């Protein structure tokens, strides 16, 4: 109980001081759906270059929390600020522009099955109308980085679970976002592949990107802690807490 109180105080102190800039800022956020309260009283400030893990049991609200962090959901209480702009004050286009600075890796990856892998990864460039030559250079480099150079013309249904996860990561990174939010990025891959994906995310963090990974794979978190200074958060009973020292 005492440890928990200290942990909550630590979160409170870290988020309330206001010291330093933040990329995503949640203030007393709550989210209710269908009359039920899914999340409540969440206050968190993601500083640039920070690395976070988000854990919690299945159904605790990790995905809902991430959706609040990239404006897919609007909180029913409190405030979510993306790059210092309250999502409630943003138009749908405003949220779209904010999302271009946030790379999202979904658990189920979500690709457009009629487009090739290269076209899928380049989709953020396509929708943001970025220069085509530059885009092609970025795309080749990125596909090489995630080890998918030889799969450029493959269609998403032809990919393995690991390839899909890496492709989703590549797509999330193609616009060189400030933040990467990954929801169970290693959920469908073996241990070796999950280590490889983790290594990619650690490298990104070292480049200054803010990373948040939602996972219930405690082994992945322990493995990451030997490479990067990560803060581990837990959602439990609709609230956000700092995870215990066992992690």
């Amino acid at each position: 109980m005492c440890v928990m109180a200290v942990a909550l105080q630590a979160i409170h102190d870290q988020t309330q001081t206001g010291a330093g800039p933040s990329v995503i800022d949640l203030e007393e956020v709550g989210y209710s759906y269908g009359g039920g309260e899914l999340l409540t009283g969440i206050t968190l400030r993601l500083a640039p270059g920070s690395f976070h893990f988000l854990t919690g049991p299945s159904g605790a609200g990790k995905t809902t929390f991430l959706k609040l962090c990239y404006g897919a959901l609007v909180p029913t209480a409190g405030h979510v600020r993306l790059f210092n702009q309250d999502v409630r004050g943003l138009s749908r286009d405003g949220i779209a522009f904010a999302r271009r600075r946030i790379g999202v890796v979904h658990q189920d990856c979500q690709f457009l099955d009629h487009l090739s892998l290269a076209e899928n990864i380049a989709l953020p460039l396509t929708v943001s109308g970025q220069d085509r030559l530059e885009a092609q250079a970025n795309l080749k480099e990125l596909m090489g980085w995630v080890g998918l150079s030889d799969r450029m013309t493959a269609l998403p249904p032809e990919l393995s679970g690991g390839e899909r996860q890496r492709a989703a990561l590549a797509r999330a990174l193609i616009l060189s976002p400030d933040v990467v939010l990954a929801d169970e990025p290693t959920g469908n891959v073996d241990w070796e592949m999950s280590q490889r994906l983790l290594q990619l995310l650690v490298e990104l963090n070292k480049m200054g990107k803010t990373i948040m990974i939602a996972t219930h794979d405690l082994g992945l978190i322990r493995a990451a802690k030997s490479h990067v200074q990560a803060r581990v958060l837990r959602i439990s009973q609709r609230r956000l807490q700092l995870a215990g020292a066992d992690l």
Partner: protein
Amino acid sequence: MSRFSLSALTDMLSVDTGADRVVPPTGFTARLTLFTAGAMAFLAVFALALSMASGRLASNWRDALAGSATLRISAPAGQMAAQTERALAILSQTPGVAEARALNPDEQRDLLEPWFGPDLPVESLPVPQLIEIRETGDGYDGDGLRLRLQAELPGAVLDDHTRWRRPLVEAAGRLKILGWLAIGLIFGAMGAMITLAANAALAANAQVIQVLRLVGATDTYIARAFVRRFTIRALIGAFAGVIAGLVAVLLLPSAGAEAGILTGLRFQGLDWLWPFLVPPLAAVVAFAATRWAAMRVLEDLS
């Protein structure tokens, strides 16, 4: 929902192969849009032809009967010539009467022939004498002329054709309005059908929209992919429908001596160009319908 403006129109229709590619082609809605636009354009050509034919009919009736009148003189046989002379004299003195001419027995027989046959002995029957009157551009004072005729020739009746002309012109005018109303309804129905097709396409691509939003696509970008596709389909379908409609109108019997309204449905002169306005109009309708549907669906999905 964002405001409809010229910039929205150009933005929506701007060529972006990327935006066109992100939405998978959907056979059902594509065929539905093409067929709807084609069928509606085909009907629009006929409605246009009907409206224009009615307009011509109204104009013909108006021109044929306007500016003329008939004076009918009923008198005993012995006084007929004198009263006709007197009537012609009065008419020649009346301002606004350009010409007055008594019909000869042959002309009167021709008028009665449809009812009594060709062998009618007009001379032996107490048939009134008819005087054809042509007005000047300014026209004559009908009430004043009637009063004078009443005073000097009590058996004379002036018929300025108003009672014949007005209902005919009104009927033709209403037919013309009906034609335009039909065109409006056709485009309205086309808009409704395309809205349904667009809604079906949007619903079928909900996951595509979700992915596009995930990667930062704006509503305009997402809507553009659907709007351009439906607009182009409507344009192509309507163009095919117009060509088919024009061929069908061409195949109608030409207006002859016995021409009624149906045989007069063909366009005349530059009127043949009017149907070519149908495809761009169909495209505008498709653009507005799809954009409205897309924006509404995107708003609902947010």
